[in-house]
């Protein structure tokens, strides 16, 4: 379920993209510092959104720097770091760990098991700092896997459980914005979960694995229906976003929420249409 929350670069100013990338590189560096290379490779774009969002909301002190990395050994990349890039890095590790566990349980991917165990070792300290958050997420994940096994579960239940996990991830501190961020995260999570279901629906039908869109797939207006549902989710998310007093990098965030977030959906849809014609 990674890699949905990204920008649409074509519609972005160069300067904005550089800022966006500097947060990405900042998180990457944070991961390496705290968790080593093993943590670094778990990096995904989703958490960059989180870091930029929280930075815009709270405007903490941010350090600018630059670094070279394995992927770009000859280029110097600007980095930005603050308490929220650190938070995003922590959440990244947490999520990667859950993802590995999930893949191991669902599909018995042994490498994922090994990697998951590695991450678990690295994330030991997180259990202390985020004890409350982790306990909540664990319970939700348990409900989630129970609900997935139960074929009668409907879209709102499954997507909602995932949404509540995202809601917890979005809230870095329990303050005056916690409720807004929870709601934002809740609908963002529902959106991502359903995008993922949309992408996998054919494969899940073939394999007989659970997918909440399965029953709708045979409907004539399946495409239309999916789009309506996804739009509904993301528009609720954006309604909450627009309430937040964010000025810094707000155009980057809007690029993600109004455009970039549809990138993967659009790619899948085009491929599917192409195949059908």
């Amino acid at each position, binding site marked *: 379920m*990674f*890699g949905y929350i*990204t*920008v*649409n*670069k*074509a*519609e972005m100013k160069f300067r904005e993209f550089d800022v966006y990338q500097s947060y990405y590189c900042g998180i990457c560096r944070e991961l390496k510092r705290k968790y080593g290379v*093993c943590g670094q*490779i*778990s*990096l*995904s*774009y989703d958490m960059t959104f989180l870091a930029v969002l929280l930075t815009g909301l709270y*405007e903490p002190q941010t350090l600018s720097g630059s670094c070279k990395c394995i*992927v770009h050994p000859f280029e110097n990349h600007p980095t930005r770091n603050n308490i929220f890039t650190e938070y995003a890095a922590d959440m990244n590790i947490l999520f*990667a760990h859950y993802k*590995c566990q999930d893949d191991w349980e669902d599909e018995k991917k042994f*490498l*994922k098991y090994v*990697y*998951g165990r590695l*991450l678990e070792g690295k994330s030991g300290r997180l259990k202390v700092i985020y004890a409350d958050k982790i306990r909540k997420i664990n319970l939700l994940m348990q409900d989630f896997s129970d609900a997935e096994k139960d074929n009668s579960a*409907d*879209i*709102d239940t499954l*997507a*909602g459980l995932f*949404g509540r996990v995202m809601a917890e991830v979005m809230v870095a501190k329990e303050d*005056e914005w916690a*409720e807004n961020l*929870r*709601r934002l995260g*809740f*609908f963002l999570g529902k959106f991502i979960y359903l995008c993922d279901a949309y992408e996998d629906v054919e494969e899940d039908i073939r394999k007989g694995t659970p997918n909440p869109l399965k029953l709708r797939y045979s409907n004539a207006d399946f495409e239309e229906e999916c789009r*309506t*549902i996804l*739009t*509904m*989710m993301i*528009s*609720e998310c*954006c*309604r909450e976003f*627009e*309430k937040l*007093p*964010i*000025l810094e990098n707000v155009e980057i965030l*809007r*690029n993600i929420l*109004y*455009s*970039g977030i*549809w*990138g*993967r959906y*659009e*790619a899948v849809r*085009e491929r599917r249409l192409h195949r059908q014609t």
Partner: protein
Amino acid sequence: MYDPYSVLGISRNASEEEIKKAYKALSRRYHPDANVNNPNKAQAEEKFKEIQAAYQQIMKERTSGYSGGYGGGGYGRSASQGGSGSTGGYGGQGGSFWGFGGPFGGFGGFGGQGMDTGYEENNYIRSAGNYIRNGYYREARTTLDGMNERDRNARWYYYSAIAHSGLGNNVAALEHAKRALSLEPDNMDYRSLVRQFENGGSWYEQRQAQYGYPTSGVGNLCARWACTFMLCNMCCFGGGCCGGHGMYYY
């Protein structure tokens, strides 16, 4: 009369950006974190709370305006003046998920209706309606789900849609609102509920038009990152956790 705009020192027709700027400037000055050593910190905190409340109220009014339909902003304003709207869904009452105030901030508009229309002969339907009007969506859900299949009339679907929406189940909410309308196509309440749910999407699409829809553009962005991910994947056991999805972007 209480005017949240004057608390932030801006005019009623200030743009969203101006509101946010004004809020930021004031909150920087009065935020408790910025007044730790201030001898008058109690006053500062009081002021901060006032600013916070004013800002939240303005934003609530403005965003409920987006949804149009149900009287939009007009409703928002009346509800905020001491809860004259009957739901007060924002308060976060025990029953709802985490205090969801309905989809667009409560359903004050329908309080009082329905009672005299003869729809609610059924006690359960009536109590579900009461729960909803008071923001107890979970209780409403339980009551509605406990009812017999054959008692599920248009009114049932209408309340069910609102309860679902209050609990964050927006897919079921839209379906049930449509169902209510298809059972009684002439009912204005049902029609406006459906419109309200659907308007959320059209508000979004209007804004979306400014940001361009991703088509081939996405490919460009990702070509480079696909390489990154591939490289990542090579060094981590052929497809580890790291954004393996990156590769799907051609």
